[in-house]
């Protein structure tokens, strides 16, 4: 029988070797496929986010009620309170902070004479804001808007700087002439406003 003897004794070895090569190639191919599929799920890219933040105008005045009093013979004749912080944010470089008397005893203000702060143009008392000097919120004729922090301010000096600022001021009273002509004991509401010019 040459059935098996026809085979060279080396042939099985050749096929075995060939089989190994095919197997190696196959493994390599499968590995390549796997490698290619993995690359899809680990892809990267970048994104740049430009973040903007705009300051908002805000102001926070003292919450507590503040007492201040003056008599016609008081010494000193210009009393001032303790210092109180005003926290405010300028949104732009042209934002200012102002203050004005808006109500007295719950009533919107009209004129100093109507509310008992003045007898006339020459005889009255004032309520004001004190720093190095006093900026009055009224005279004998009218109520005044005081520039607390602005291009012409002498109280705070942060105008032109968009940011949040904290500065302290005092409240003051002064008398002109013979005063208001009667006793005065009322609540005075002062409104601080931050606004773009």
């Amino acid at each position, binding site marked *: 029988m040459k059935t098996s003897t026809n085979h060279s004794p080396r042939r099985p070895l050749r096929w075995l070797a060939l089989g190994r090569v095919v197997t190696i190639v196959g493994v390599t191919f499968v590995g390549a496929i796997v490698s290619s599929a993995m690359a899809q799920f680990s892809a990267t890219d970048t994104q740049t*986010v430009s973040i903007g933040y705009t300051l908002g105008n805000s102001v926070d005045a003292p919450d507590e*009620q503040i007492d*201040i009093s003056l008599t016609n013979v008081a010494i000193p004749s210009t009393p001032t309170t303790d210092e109180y912080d005003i926290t405010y944010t300028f949104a732009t470089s042209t934002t200012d902070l102002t203050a004005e008397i*808006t109500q007295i005893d719950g009533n919107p203000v009209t004129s100093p004479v109507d509310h008992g702060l003045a007898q006339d143009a020459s005889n009255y008392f004032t309520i004001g804001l004190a720093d190095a000097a006093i900026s009055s919120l009224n005279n004998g004729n009218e109520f005044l808007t005081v520039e607390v922090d602005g291009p012409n301010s002498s109280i705070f000096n942060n105008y032109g700087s968009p940011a949040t600022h904290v500065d302290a001021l005092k409240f003051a009273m002064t008398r002109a002439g013979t005063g208001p*002509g009667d*006793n005065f004991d009322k609540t005075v509401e002062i409104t601080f406003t931050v606004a*773009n010019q």
Partner: protein
Amino acid sequence: MHPYVAQSFRAALVVTVLALPATVSAQVSASDTVTLNASFSYVSSITAPANLSMSLDGVNPDNYKSVDVGNLEFSLATSNTDVEAEVTKIDGTDVSTSPVDTVFVTDENNYLTLGVANDNSTKDNPGEPFWDGTEYKTVTLIDSNGSGSGGGALTSASTIAGDIGEYAETMYLYLQQVGNGPSTAITTDVVITYTVIDP
């Protein structure tokens, strides 16, 4: 959803959310208030006119002389406040109950008196004396119930009376010879005390 698409969508959301506060914060103005309990009170006070010298010549045909002595400054704390003046010392000595024992008085009909006048005072309507021939008198300059005593010791007494406030009023003093006047020449100091009082 593809992961990349999801990532992009999330990024878009973040950008949108970040943009919202910027829009809201761009408000034009903001305000806050503070409340002051403010009081102005008048308290009683008075400042006498400056010291002065005044004299009367016994040969003065009117036997009367008034002098503008400057401002009497005072404040009325209540609507019931009066302003008074009285002589408290003569020649450095506290006054007693009667002026008879002073150099000013010879007797009840003949003496030299000092008083408070106003700008309308005359010999016949001189004002309010600090003494007569028998007693010292307290002169009411401002009477809260009306005008100054008598014809009004201060010119503006009637408009000030009962009115809270601070005042500076021109004041006049006068000398007047009554009868034959005192029996001797006089050079002496008289102290006048001014008082603001709510009786």
